[in-house]
């Protein structure tokens, strides 16, 4: 039965790869529109992941270590983007960055328009993907024994230094896993992004556009190339994280 589920996941992907010729793939890779779209998707998702990591990791630490009123509610809210339809998430983001919103007006005053801008795309990506990072980092920090942090405090470390020298390194494996998940989820986001920015086109939107305008045959090579890139990034990050963990424990 389990094999059937596995086949259900792998089957469509394999059939898509089989149905795409190598000429089509080469042609797609050389297509400037595809290249710039993939470049945009990767760079925005990467930048978004790192920007939000700076905010999300300390939040995850606080959630793991401190008890406060409405903490459970807050944890529930963090998971909200995972359960709501992504197009609705896109509408919500559009609401706060459109020109008549406070943020939109502020952006307008410095000559920016988040709608149709990589920043808007990044916000849409982050909205649906940041829970993966927060949850993974939260689990990571929870697994760090509080006693080690207490010991570090008695050894003259400031709370900030305890965070950077004890908590963060020990939760690193989970955090990297969360970063990879956030990056991958952001990169593959379609629903929220398409509402905020049809142009510039991220790859999932490009695939949709090609499918709508030219049909399955034209959407398939872009999909194959994008899936290969996603897998490559995923594997590379995993290897990097494992290597880093090995190095740290061997220190």
């Amino acid at each position, binding site marked *: 039965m389990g094999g059937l589920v596995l086949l259900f996941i792998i089957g469509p992907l394999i059939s898509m790869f089989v149905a795409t010729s190598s000429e089509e793939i080469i042609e797609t890779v050389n297509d400037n529109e595809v290249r710039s779209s993939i470049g945009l998707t990767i760079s925005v998702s990467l930048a978004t992941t790192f920007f939000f990591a700076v905010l999300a990791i300390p939040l995850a630490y606080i959630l793991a270590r401190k008890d406060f009123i409405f903490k459970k509610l807050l944890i529930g809210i963090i998971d909200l983007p995972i359960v709501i339809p992504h197009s609705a998430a896109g509408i919500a983001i559009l609401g706060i960055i459109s020109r008549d919103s406070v943020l939109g007006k502020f952006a307008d005053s410095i000559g920016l328009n988040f709608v149709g801008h990589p920043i808007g795309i990044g916000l849409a990506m982050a909205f649906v993907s940041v829970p993966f990072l927060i949850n993974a980092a939260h689990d990571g920090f929870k697994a760090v024994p509080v006693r080690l942090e207490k010991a570090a405090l008695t*050894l003259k470390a400031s709370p900030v230094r305890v965070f950077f020298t004890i908590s963060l390194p*020990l939760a690193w494996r989970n955090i990297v896993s969360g970063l990879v998940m956030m990056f991958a989820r952001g990169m593959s986001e379609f629903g929220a992004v398409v509402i905020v920015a049809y142009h510039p086109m991220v790859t999932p939107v490009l695939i949709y556009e090609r499918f709508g305008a030219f049909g399955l045959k034209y959407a398939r090579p872009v999909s194959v190339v994008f899936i290969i890139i996603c897998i490559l990034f995923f594997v590379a990050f995993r290897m990097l994280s494992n290597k880093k963990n090995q190095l740290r*424990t061997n220190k």
Partner: protein
Amino acid sequence: MLELKNINITFDEFSVTNLSIAIKQGDYYVILGESGAGKSMILELIAGIIKAESGRIFLNNEDISDKNIQKREIGIVFQDYAIFPHMNVFNNIAYPLKNNKLSKKEIKNKVIQISEELDISHLLNRKTTNLSGGELQRTALARTLVLNPKVLLLDEPLVALDVSLKDSLRNFLRKLHKKGQTIIHVTHDFEEAVSLANKIAVIHKGKLLQEGKPSDVFNNPQSEFTAHFTGNKNFYDAEYISEQTIRIKNTINIIANPSEIMCKGYVILPADTLFISLEKPFTSAVNNFEGTIKSIVPSRFGKEIIIDIGINVSVLITEKSFQNFNLEEGKYIWLSFKANSVRFIPKN
């Protein structure tokens, strides 16, 4: 030197009530109590990890109750050592020195010096994840001692070590104490306390029951708990009812050394002064009671026999005597002891 005044704190299921203790410079102060007595909490309180609800802590007459944990000059070695698993032994020991922003050269010198003292210099480049309990313990001690704390707090330091490692660590702690290091050590093992302390405090359910020199605490326990805890099981509430008669637990009367004052107190019948026989003995012992054997428990020296003579009395006998007497539970037996072996401790 270190003074805790009227400390009160409740933390989960543990609490400390109105605790006041004073530790002098150079003391080896052992806090003795059962698991859950609040011992570790007292150490965390002194170290500044937790705060008391009321009461003050003074170090060299300075009130450190609200002082930052990093500025207290108090080192603590946790029961589970709290060694940082992502750092090797060198970096664990160097950690507090780096926090104090010492130069690399100074850090290296100090780490090498302390690791030689603790005989772990061969481990400096080792990962901590595959060290033995004794090696982890020494690493934790080195990491704490490298800062030369004014007071060293040890939370059950010997509990996880095997016998030979215990001896070696005890020797190290004695040497450290001789050098003048003030040490506060919590344990549930009274033999450990006697072997190291120059002062002992007995804590039960967060309250200080007794404090003093080891000999005072063990020879003159001031509560049933202390007596039991220190291995003295024949400890009873008692009262002199005539010049030479003591009534124990309002149940039986025994003959003891004469007392001019009729007062309430406690009686100790030291286990090594009690004799048993199958028939009524005709000896100089004036206290002879017939009772039944309630239970027989193997002990370090042979067997511990609990005899019910109206009160339960614990007697230690050798395996050979046990076999000679052919003892079994429920058997009638005589218990004898001399008047001058009865120890009476008046209540304060």
